[in-house]
């Protein structure tokens, strides 16, 4: 049980690394692109792509679509299923819960 739990924890840590790394790349893309292009337009005409200001399309809409693809990859292939502990034996009833807490305290 604890070996399985240890492996599951290590897998969760790998997933965490992937998630934080991906977030960092997207933060750089979205904030970086916007800071370079979104402040230019101060006139009565605006450069558009698909009817939207172009900086919105390349700095927000496209990253959003790519982020969706990465989410699908992460959820479909990278993230591993883990057998979650069945807590049905553990009561959520207060009395038992409090009892087990007191027992833990005694043991420690």
């Amino acid at each position: 049980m604890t070996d399985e739990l240890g492996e599951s924890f290590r897998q969760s840590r790998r997933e965490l690394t992937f998630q934080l790394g991906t977030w960092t790349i997207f933060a750089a893309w979205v904030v970086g692109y916007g800071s370079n292009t979104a402040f230019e337009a101060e006139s009565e005409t605006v450069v558009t792509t698909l009817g939207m200001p172009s900086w919105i399309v390349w700095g927000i809409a496209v990253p959003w679509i790519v982020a969706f693809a990465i989410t699908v990859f992460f959820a479909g292939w990278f993230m591993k299923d883990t057998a979650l502990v069945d807590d049905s034996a553990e009561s959520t009833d207060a009395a038992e819960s409090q009892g087990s807490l007191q027992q833990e305290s005694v043991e420690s």
Partner: protein
Amino acid sequence: MTGVLASAASDSAIVSFSVYLAVVFLLAWLANRAQSGKSFVGEYFLGSRNIGLWGFALTYAATAASGGSFMGFPSLIYTHGWVLAWWIAGYCMAPLIALGLLAKRINQVSRLAGAITVPELLRKRFDNQTVGTVATLMLVVFMFFFLLAQFKAGAEIMTVLLSDVEFVQQAANATEARLDGWRWIGEADGDFVLCLLFFAVAVVVYTSYGGYLAVVWTDVMQGIVMLIGVLIMLGLALWQVGGLESATQQLARMTPPEFGKATIDSPVDEDLDLRKGTWLQTQAGGIARLNENVTITEGIEPEVEVLFLTRDDSAYQQLEGKLPPHITAVETPGSREKLAYGSDKAGVYVSAPGPHKDNPTGFLPVALALSFFVFWNFSGAGQPSYMVRQMSFRDTRILRRSMVMVAVFFGLIYFPLVVIFTSARLLLPGMEVYADRIMPEMASHLTTAAGIPWLAGLLFAAPFAAVMSSVDSFLLLLSSGIVRDIYQQRINPDAPDSTLRKLSYATTIIVGLLAVVAMLNPPPFLQTLIVFASAGLGASFLAPVAMGLFWKRMTGEGALAGMFSGATVILVLYSWQYWQTGEFGPYNVMGLDPFVWGALISAFSVVIVSLTSPAPPAPLVEKYFGRD
């Protein structure tokens, strides 16, 4: 209510909206029946940890898409323009981070601990009663602020929906007369008070009666309503503005309207009541909108606050021939309040940083854009209301599929909202006087102009669903904090189910009543309140929970330090801003939102205090992390 452009919802809209409410109550009743015969607390507060794909994905997404998303966010888009797409862009990562970062470990650890609330999870993870108590107190305080904003949003939607119903208006006038002169609530509009009461009763009844299962089931229905509502609005808005390209180019030509003072010149002999929102011709040939109610009596030309439209081409076309005859507004020289950024600037609605009343660097400078990219993801991951949902899914397959489903949901909600409400500036000019009502007004306008007023009921239901699905979750979270974490754990561990049930009902009702009283004199900007509460919860809980799930060496003392320091930073920075400006809002040190500082200092405190306190006992670590 708001003038010549937006007509109120028709009777048929009210009927379809009533059908929606009836379904909500039916689901609550069914949920209550489904829970009978099961252990009360586990079922009532967590649905016995047996929530499937649709339930988990949509309860998460619907709770995230709160009154802020459907009332405050549209108001900000309307006021500041396309830059709001940049502001919300962090949501592209939300399924991966806000939902996926902690979900698997939270579910796993909460099962190992037998915990059904976030404070209980922390208490058991660190085997420390004080951690649980402090977590409960922080949750209750910040969550109450969150709840306040949702109550206001719910009441605003009802107000617009019922604005043309005669008996409601009569009741509203009577209420207003009765409240006149009272401290605190005397300023409240009668219709707002009535709608607030109706909303509070509706949501408190179905939440307290149906518990977590009712919240999940109604969230599924509400999530679907939101999605359909937004997509219909998107189609109607694009059609009515003549396509996205046309809307963007028109928006590029517009400059922000400005508040100022004017005297009302009217040749009428009798008294004349003009309601807030009335459009007026100005003496200089422009257009202005009243920002307060005014009574004109013979011989007196009152000075009133108005909103002056500037170069609002579409507004001029729409208003031509619809302004009250013989009444003109004479601008008081020097009274116009220029914006700190954006006045007279064409292109300000289609570029960054967006116009801003007080901030000379505009609405969204780069540092703040980065702050919000951090905020939406990590504050989201740190919200106890989401953590509770992450404890409730049945298995990790459901989590993986839900991430994809939530990604689709967010993509189809948030980006279209930006398109819809940048278009709203063209269709409904001058809504700055009713900034928080732009969503229901737009729903009413779009459907009326399309000749399908009955559809307004569904579109009204979308933001209402967003508000309800958040309020029910927060009410339940508050109720669980008080009943489970305080009463059951510390006062009466042997309390029978019947007592816990009564106490849960009573807690939900009392919290609802307190929220109503507080909201009788609501603050003007909904979104500020929501961002404050989110920042407080995120900064207090993110580091202690996330590090507690992934760092074996972390101690209870470290968790306490993290919660205290995170909450303190948020309170200090918001108080400092209030002290400096007299307005409730965030004080951005180095341009970064208080949440970023709060979360960083909280994480730093966790590390320092954990490393300087005794290491946790090995059995406790092995229980939650397994063997190396």
